[in-house]
């Protein structure tokens, strides 16, 4: 089995790629996909540590995996509502470009 630090390193790399996507892309849908990538990276970190502490007492043995299931649930809910917002935005402004919804920017 690989050292768990490699798993955490992969998780960190994926998280950084996700952050780069959120920071630089202008298409709102791609920003949402980058957020999904960040959530996936976090899931990987949870599962890596869950595997490391797999022989802890029975009450807390599945903490990591249950948390990952909750993160997947939250991600599904967030994608549903986020895409609803994208559709509303497109109906109002005919564009999903982030720079077209910058009315509140100074």
């Amino acid at each position, binding site marked *: *089995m*690989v*050292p*768990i*630090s*490699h*798993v*955490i*390193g*992969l998780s*960190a790399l*994926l998280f950084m*790629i996700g952050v*780069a*996507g959120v920071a*630089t*892309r*202008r*298409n709102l*849908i*791609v920003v949402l*996909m*980058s957020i*999904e*990538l960040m959530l*996936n990276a976090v*899931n*990987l970190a949870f*599962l890596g540590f*869950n*595997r*490391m*502490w*797999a*022989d802890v007492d029975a*009450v807390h*043995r*599945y903490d990591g995996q*249950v948390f*990952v*299931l*909750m993160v*997947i*649930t939250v*991600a*599904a*809910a*967030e*994608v*549903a*509502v986020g*895409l*609803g*917002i*994208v*559709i*509303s935005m*497109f109906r109002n402004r005919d564009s*999903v470009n982030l*720079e077209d919804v910058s009315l509140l920017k100074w």
Partner: protein
Amino acid sequence: MTALQVLFYAFAALALVSALGMLFNVRNAVAAAMSLVVTMVSLAGIYVLLEAHLVAAIQIIVYAGAIVVLFLFVVMLLNLRADEFAPGRQWPTKTAALLLVVAAGAHLVRIVSAELPEPAVPPAGFGGYALLGIALYTDYVLLVEMASLLLLAAIVGAVILAKRKLD
């Protein structure tokens, strides 16, 4: 290098390459979404290597099989065209990006070379649906109920947001 280690590094490389593909695929939102699918499926492979079998199956069924299809559906519904990277002040942005990459690289080296304890030997059936299901519905039943309430709120919210105006 055992076969499992080779598999892990192969999946990791695939996940990284397709994540970068999603990041740099400016012209085509559908291609970016497909790269994300490849990332998620390779991550599911890594989850199986980490003895989280039910979570890997749920990752493919829910994440790769439904959430990204939802993204694709919206992309096709809105018939989106090409995108560009944010323009802006070129040299300050590029310098800041380079410095961030260097700092992140240093942190990454520190993370990867950390001395974490050896992974423990998991008990039999670890990560399978039976034991995880029992844990979910006995110790974490409150979380499951809250998750179902959250999903209900999300369903209602998404339906209302996507409805046309009632006039």
